[in-house]
């Protein structure tokens, strides 16, 4: 996971040279470590008149243990360390003229946001807006947040828009925790929707450090890379993890499973019997799965004109068809427990497309389609289905890319660096949390706000 360029331009000499040449200097972004507080400094909470999310946000922030400020203290007084996060309820903005409120709130404060700071704008669903003008205004917030993300990224800070449905106000804590914390280090410029859910569908984990205690999670492609990080992170959060990978990866898979006290299941997920075998494993060994992470994926890159039918077929089979079949099997046999979580790994390529990846991008866009179709059935049984879409993540797979493409992939995002497998894993863990019961049908990019497909 070495980023030599980042080390070079961060050194005293490199910094001086880099600055003169106008080279981008990637910030050192803070990532979660056990024992870290959710948010290290004061959180300023503001809101536009007429918004209904401020109280819920304040309750959530207090539960998190954040130091909440209602108004900006005078510069130089008791905020010597600056502000760790700015949270703003924009749900009350019902016309384009009133969008001025976000300018008024953020413009004077942005410079006081610390490095690795967080900007979170809370909003309503445009579809639920009371008027055409309100819908336009709520939609407009997307452009605002995405631009802020690009402005604050140079210091390792992020900006997100959280849209909360009427009736979803009490379900925002797990999402606020994730977005405020260092767990979301490589997530920026995202729009996350929170559904209306019955109060009983929203569980509050007894221990937010071990939210998956007593839960069983299956992770495909767990032998290495992102899958390995997901398995480790879910185990850290208390889950009993069933690590799945092809038999050929069995040695690495076994090592991962033993390291996290989980189970190794060697299974070719493209086999006709893969769904039944995984389901049988759930029945015999655990009775159910609470979390299923469809992570296994392959690339067979080649421009379409030169691509062989096998290169097309294998990518679609592993990356998409297997996810469909296994999900269907588990849902048909009712093996996804109440409060179940399906998390599918898509890709920024699936959103933006990529030269030489027609097969891969098709499969990964299909994964987004799968999540859209699963969201309804999941909601009916009190479960959720979401996707994460990683951008450039430092893995053995990206290490094998040609230097030019690799460097471009790394730098062309708001944080000017590649993500770590753990960044994807933390995002999966948030979606898998029992506290995230109202986060459904989302596609969350873990890409440092990459320019691709933005």
């Amino acid at each position, binding site marked *: 996971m070495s980023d030599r360029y980042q080390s070079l331009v961060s050194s005293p000499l490199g910094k001086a040279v880099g600055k003169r040449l106008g080279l981008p200097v990637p910030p050192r972004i803070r990532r979660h470590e056990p024992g870290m507080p959710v948010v290290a400094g004061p959180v300023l909470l503001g809101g536009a008149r007429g918004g209904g999310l401020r109280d819920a946000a304040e309750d959530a922030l207090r539960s998190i243990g954040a130091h909440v400020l209602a108004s900006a203290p005078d510069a130089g007084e008791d905020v010597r360390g600056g502000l760790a996060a700015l949270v703003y309820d924009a749900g009350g903005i019902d016309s384009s003229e009133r969008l001025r409120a976000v300018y008024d709130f953020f413009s004077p404060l942005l410079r006081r946001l610390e490095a690795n700071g967080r900007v979170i704008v809370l909003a309503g669903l445009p579809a639920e807006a009371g008027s055409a003008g309100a819908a336009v205004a709520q939609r407009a917030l997307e452009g605002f947040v995405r631009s802020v993300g690009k402005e604050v990224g140079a210091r390792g800070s992020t900006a997100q828009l959280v849209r909360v449905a009427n009736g979803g106000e009490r379900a925002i804590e797990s999402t606020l925790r994730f977005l405020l914390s260092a767990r979301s280090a490589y997530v920026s410029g995202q729009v996350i929707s929170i559904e209306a859910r019955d109060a009983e569908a929203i569980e509050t984990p007894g221990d937010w450090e071990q939210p998956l205690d007593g839960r069983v999670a299956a992770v495909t492609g767990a032998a290495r890379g992102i899958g390995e990080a997901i398995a480790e992170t879910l185990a850290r959060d208390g889950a009993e993890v069933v690590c799945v990978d092809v038999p050929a990866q069995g*040695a690495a898979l076994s090592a991962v499973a*033993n390291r996290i006290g989980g*189970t190794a299941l060697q299974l070719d997920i493209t086999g006709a019997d893969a769904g039944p075998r995984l389901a049988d494993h759930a029945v015999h060994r655990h009775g159910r799965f609470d979390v299923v992470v469809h992570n296994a994926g392959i690339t067979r890159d080649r421009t379409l004109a030169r691509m062989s039918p096998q290169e097309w077929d294998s990518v679609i089979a592993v990356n998409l068809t297997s996810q469909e079949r296994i999900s269907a099997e588990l849902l048909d046999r009712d093996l996804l427990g109440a409060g179940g979580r399906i998390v599918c790994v898509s890709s920024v390529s699936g959103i933006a497309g990529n030269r030489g990846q027609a097969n891969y991008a098709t499969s990964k866009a299909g994964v987004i389609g799968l999540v859209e179709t699963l969201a309804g059935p999941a909601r009916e049984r009190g479960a959720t289905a979401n996707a994460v879409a990683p951008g450039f993540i430092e893995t053995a797979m990206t290490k094998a890319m040609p230097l030019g493409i690799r460097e471009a992939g790394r730098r062309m995002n708001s944080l000017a660096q590649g993500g770590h497998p753990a960044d994807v894993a933390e995002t999966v863990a948030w979606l898998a949390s029992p506290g995230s019961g109202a986060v459904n049908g989302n596609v969350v990019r873990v890409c440092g706000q990459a320019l691709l497909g933005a």
Partner: protein
Amino acid sequence: MARDTSKVAVLGGNRIPFARQNGSYARASNQDMLTAALDGLVSRFALGGEVLGEVAAGAVLKHSRDLNLTREALLGSALSPRTPAYDVQQACGTGLEATLLVANKIALGQIEAGVAGGVDTTSDAPIEINEDLRQLLLEANRTRSTVGRLRLLGRLRPGQIVPALPRNAEPRTGMSMGEHQAVSTRRWGITRAEQDEIAAASHQRLAAAYERGFFDDLLTPYLGLERDQNLRPDSTPQKLAKLRPVFGDGPEATMTAGNSTPLTDGAAVVLLASDRWAKERSLPPLAYVVDAETAAVDFTSGADDLLGAPLYAVPRLLARNRLAIGDFDFYEIHEAFASQVAMTLKAWEDPAFCSERLGLDEPLGSIDRERLNVNGSSLATGHPFAATGGRIVATLAKLLAERGSGRGLISICAAGGQGVTAILEAA
């Protein structure tokens, strides 16, 4: 001590693919391979950090430094270091005998769960110093005076540098196992064609088992090897017929490198437990251990075949369990040599042998070839001596679990004129 015995379940197994001598595992030690096999089992059943009743395993070819081989492997594995372990050694019967030792303790309620297995390397073989030199050095150690030691030094001869290599030979006859079996092959009139047919079927069936994913939950790749290195899926009797005989003399020699097992490296282990232990962990039993019988024969006088002990063990086992030879759905007869399998089948069909040697009124009977070694056996997988028992127990247990009913017979011949046999039944 008398108490009720409890059922002993085979919950599963794990092995590493078997490698040909000086193949993929040329630089792996017995301890490395046994640790890998154990770790694969631990991850399959989420046993990380668990204290088990015991782990019993062994190796046939062993360095003198490996006096506590199984315990050392366990300490390197993901199991709790508080799990006891010991070594077992009964030539090629080691793996199955270890299984029976653990199973019997579970049956008696002395332990609830354990692991049994074995490992062998013919690549990382123990090489000993020349026996003459060893005696000389021992005497030097006993000699007190410097003059005396110098005098001993004068007895050093260049020939003493030649090391002693482990030999695949019976100490009491000086004949290799292959040479012994060549005698038996001729005695029983086993043809070359019969042997080659058994060998080809072994390869073809093993290949088919791999193709259908049978080993996905019985095997963990190791050092880049995903399947048994000895496997030749395209093996046919016609191709095998072209090989030159390696054991026996003259035109009657029929045993080739193709219908005899090659020297192999590998390790295999199985997980055994009481029903209660299995249920507590939601681990479904694949099969139960029903009974076992070990026999030995008088091969030094030439009265019996070196690899003929199972011919005696199985009839006793059947009689005790009131079973006929036809009452099994699967037969796992270890293929030390194709001719050993053919000899076994022939002996049990032979009225003279069954009456004179086994004391039976009628021949024991025939075995349906379609139920024999259905997923191949040692001719195709290879035969790391002590690992074979674990391979067979896990394979048969899974076959029975897939079938959902029935029973299977295991027969393993071993050096020193011994044979270990057992019955498993579906869970």
